[in-house]
């Protein structure tokens, strides 16, 4: 049963942090590659990306987002009952990054802290996981720290024009009578190889030869440690599975499309996002995009888009949002969330 409803859970706030360093997909590559890059940029819609320097991890961005959000919410640190980190860029393979952040953020030892390994699809899943804990009455307040240092999965940030880095924090709390949240969440592991880092886990442990890079047709060097992305498989998956899921979720919640103020889609690339938008018959003004400046920040692309594009609208009054994530796994899901009087700090640049 992929569809579900959560009651008595309030969306309390969201903060987003991106690194300072900006990489330009055309101007920053060697001159002989620029013409081909211009064609690529035209089609994927990504001009600039935010890239962490070597020392900066996803958790550093998430820390800054969480610290600011907790301060602006005026939540005391020992009120946070749960801290869920959702990332594929942990500080270490062991232990979980959430537990490290419990300490860094000065949260109580009684905090429930754990990691969830999801990428582009993560945001609605994360809302469901923390939301369920709150709706059950077990806990009152919790944080989701979600994002990735996706640029590093290709080591050289110029090599892949898609991925960008961001860390985000979302706060949920228990409130009697809060508007229901509706979810539709799905998984299909038969597509696990469509987006994969094949080496470094227990199936294919790292060996020295995996580190040897080979020069590709595009002039960049790649090794087995780099992320492999099967573009045709991903575009077929995204454009076939996502629109029916959104329709199904709207049907389940019995909410007409017109009653959704904004549809916040994972920012994958322009071709994918435009195809999904057209299939659903949605106007551009209801589908905000941050692809051009912020690229594909994996699961964080939903909070990035909210923080950058919708902050003023959300501060101004009640809005009904439909979040939709899709990608690595393969995994895809949606959530309908009413937001009112929530805290949205300005974009943090760290």
């Amino acid at each position, binding site marked *: 049963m992929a569809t579900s409803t959560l009651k008595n859970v309030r969306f309390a706030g969201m903060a987003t942090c991106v690194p300072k360093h900006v990489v330009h997909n055309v101007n920053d590559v060697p001159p002989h590659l620029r013409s081909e890059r211009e064609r690529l940029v035209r089609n*994927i819609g990504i001009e600039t990306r935010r890239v962490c320097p070597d020392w900066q991890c996803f958790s550093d961005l998430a820390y800054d987002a969480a610290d600011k959000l907790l301060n602006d919410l005026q939540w005391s640190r020992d009120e946070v009952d749960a801290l869920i980190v959702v990332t594929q860029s942990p500080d270490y393979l062991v232990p979980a990054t959430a537990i490290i952040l419990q300490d860094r953020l000065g949260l109580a030892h009684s905090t429930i802290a754990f990691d969830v390994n999801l990428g582009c699809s993560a945001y609605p899943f994360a809302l469901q996981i923390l939301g369920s804990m709150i709706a059950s009455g077990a806990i009152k307040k919790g944080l989701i720290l979600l994002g990735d240092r996706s640029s590093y999965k290709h080591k050289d940030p110029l090599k892949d024009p898609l991925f960008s880095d961001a860390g985000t924090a979302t706060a949920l709390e228990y409130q009697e009578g809060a508007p229901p949240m509706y979810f539709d969440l799905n998984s299909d592991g038969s597509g696990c190889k469509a987006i994969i880092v094949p080496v470094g886990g227990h199936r294919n442990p790292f060996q020295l030869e995996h580190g040897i890079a080979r020069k590709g047709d595009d002039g960049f060097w790649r090794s087995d440690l780099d992320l492999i992305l099967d573009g*045709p498989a991903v575009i077929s998956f995204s454009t076939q599975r996502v629109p029916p899921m959104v329709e199904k979720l709207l049907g389940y919640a019995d909410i007409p499309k017109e009653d959704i103020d904004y549809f916040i889609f994972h920012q994958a690339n322009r*071709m994918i996002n435009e*195809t999904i938008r057209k*299939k659903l018959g949605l106007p551009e003004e209801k589908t905000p995009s941050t692809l051009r400046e912020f690229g594909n920040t994996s699961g964080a692309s939903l909070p990035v888009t909210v923080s950058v594009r919708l902050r003023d609208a959300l501060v101004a009054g009640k809005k009904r949002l439909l979040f939709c994530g899709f990608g690595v796994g393969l995994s895809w899901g949606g959530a309908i969330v009413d937001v009112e009087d929530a805290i949205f700090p300005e974009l943090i640049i760290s």
Partner: protein
Amino acid sequence: MDNIDTFIEKFITAVDFQEAVEITPDTVLKDLPEWDSLAALGVIVLSDMEYGKTITGEHLKQVTTVNDLYQLLT
């Protein structure tokens, strides 16, 4: 249904050629400088949105000429 000339116009837009290129039904896809992964994505979207057909990367590996692609999509 689109005739082959209309299809070729749409194909040229979908692939987004850097420089003007002459394309006939007999043009071999692999000979086109832009017949790459980005072009494949463009053609997959074209097939879906214009012809209502879901194709995969595997389908694209099996076609040789522009006319083969036309037959596949229409």
